[in-house]
């Protein structure tokens, strides 16, 4: 038995899981409808696909949600997982699921997929026959992903960095790399059976003042780690920055860089897609304004010609949205895409050159780390602050990079910590903001910048 098989046998056995029948699962995937594969949909569509977020504790409520989404002619169905499952706390998830079922009150902020199991979930997924995207935030997602793929969910979001640094405090980063290596391999293996499984990285990270170069470096590294294992369809992503121009710059640069680095490791046959997240930071508490903000994000997604957009709702500041509200958001976004025509290309050569140089510098530093594999190089780079994510709750994160917004709301680096960017680039970043020496002024500016979309 291969090591992989051994690992698999351990993972799929615990008190919360039904028996896995792997030969039946292979057969299911081999014969599954092409419509379940987002990789297939990307290939055959020219507009930006629309995907909301959404996960309810009980099977029935999730089913109803999908019915609403279907009416709004959604492109990609979401399956958002609850935060207990995300931390592998299936016991708490089970308890809260039971409470939710008994009381008709939602006691979970997502769908506890492991507790529901793949046999049930697959019924729902195949019934609606649209691509489903798994959204979680789990460092050790091995069991979750086995369950998802067996259910007919053929897009898996996340990665060892993007689902760890924003989503966990203590979970060991090296373990996360290994657990995700497992996930990549499972996805790669199943990709040979039918259309490829699509992997997607989570570019928004903490959604709070993350500078473009860090976002893109992390996107590239997760892409490379995935391609290395044989994945053939991958989506890089980022979230609305707050500056239209910075969004356009990021989109242009991330496309170029993804291409460049995929080639660099010798992969030429993988499809790379671009996903744009509507504003992921703190929302206004006025629902009308939230609608405006959401529409503004959709406009930018069109401008940057994203392959997919992940949307928010007018309820964002308040709590998990109602189904109707969520479906309405889908319909509004689809309408905006329909009427938005004649989009001009946007190019800012100077900004793009600076950003590219920053990315190359950081990537070079990662590649130059003395460790033997890319994941170990990346691990070391995070540990010593070559990669540093503002507002990460994780203990390993360096927390030395400080960013604020310039007058056009571009996110700029004002303290570079251990980021290996050139003096020239750093000087450019700093030249854009009027720096104050006074620490409380800077803190107040940061607080203001966090609430930049508030009314």
């Amino acid at each position: 038995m291969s090591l992989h098989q051994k690992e698999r046998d351990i993972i799929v056995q615990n008190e919360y899981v039904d028996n896995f029948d792997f030969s039946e699962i292979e057969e299911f995937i081999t014969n599954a409808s092409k419509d379940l594969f987002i990789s297939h949909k990307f290939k055959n569509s020219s507009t930006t696909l629309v995907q909301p977020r959404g996960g309810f504790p009980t099977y029935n409520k999730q089913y109803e949600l999908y019915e609403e989404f279907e009416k709004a002619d959604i492109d990609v169905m979401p399956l958002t997982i609850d935060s207990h499952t995300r931390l592998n706390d299936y016991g708490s998830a089970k308890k809260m699921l039971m409470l939710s079922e008994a009381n008709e009150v939602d006691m979970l902020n997502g769908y506890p997929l492991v507790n529901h199991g793949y046999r049930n979930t697959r019924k729902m997924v195949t019934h609606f026959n649209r691509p489903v995207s798994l959204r979680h935030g789990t460092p050790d997602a091995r069991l979750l992903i086995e369950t998802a793929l067996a259910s007919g969910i053929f897009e898996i979001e996340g990665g060892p960095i993007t689902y760890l640094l924003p989503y966990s405090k203590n979970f060991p980063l090296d373990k996360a790399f290994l657990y995700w290596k497992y996930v990549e391999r499972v996805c790669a293996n199943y990709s040979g059976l039918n259309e490829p499984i699509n992997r997607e990285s989570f570019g928004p990270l903490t959604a709070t003042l993350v500078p473009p170069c860090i976002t893109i470096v992390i996107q590239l590294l997760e892409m490379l780690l995935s391609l290395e294992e044989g994945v053939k369809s991958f989506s890089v992503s980022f979230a609305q920055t707050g500056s239209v121009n910075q969004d356009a710059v990021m989109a242009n640069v991330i496309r170029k860089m993804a291409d460049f680095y995929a080639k660099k490791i010798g992969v030429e046959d993988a499809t790379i897609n671009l996903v744009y997240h509507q504003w992921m930071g703190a929302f206004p508490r006025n629902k009308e304004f939230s609608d405006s903000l959401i529409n503004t994000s959709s406009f930018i997604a069109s401008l940057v010609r994203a392959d997919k957009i992940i949307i928010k709702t007018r309820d964002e500041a308040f709590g998990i949205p109602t189904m109707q509200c969520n479906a309405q958001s889908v319909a509004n976004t689809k309408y905006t895409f329909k009427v938005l025509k004649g989009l001009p290309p946007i190019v800012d050569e100077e900004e793009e050159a600076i950003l590219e140089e920053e990315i190359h510098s950081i990537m070079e530093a990662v590649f130059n780390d003395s460790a033997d594999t890319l994941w170990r190089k990346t691990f070391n780079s995070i540990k010593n602050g070559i990669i540093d994510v503002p507002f990460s709750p994780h203990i390993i994160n360096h927390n030395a990079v400080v960013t604020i917004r310039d007058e056009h709301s571009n996110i700029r680096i004002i303290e570079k910590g251990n980021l290996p960017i050139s003096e020239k680039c750093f000087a450019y970043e700093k030249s854009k903001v009027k720096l104050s020496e006074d620490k409380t002024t800077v803190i107040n500016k940061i607080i203001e910048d966090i609430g930049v979309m508030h009314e």
Partner: protein
Amino acid sequence: MKVVTGVVGNDIHVVANRLIDISLQARGFEVFNLGVNTHLEEFIDAAVESDADIILISSLNGEAEGWCRDLQFLRAEYALKNVVFVIGGNLSVGEAKDEDIVPKYESYGFDLVFHQVDLNTGLDKLEEFLGKRS
């Protein structure tokens, strides 16, 4: 005065937590920040250990209700009579009204409950409450 603060449960929303830390310090409190993903028992442990006056809990992702039901038992067990229990953030899954949320959490044993209340407003009320008590 000593405050133990943090974000309860499997919740990792850290932004408010960072701001709370800064704001409490600015108001002259001594702060023990346990950060995100802190279980109820850890709050109690830290309060006992540091002899804290206040436990100030944040919850953003909707989990609080699940965790805080056990507060009464813990409070009884550890005999933390004089510790002020404060909770704030987004205290339900889905949208909820103050009228429903506040009494519920008071019945769990919280002295002050701030559902979707701005941080500074909440901290002003906390200081007011402390003033009245002493």
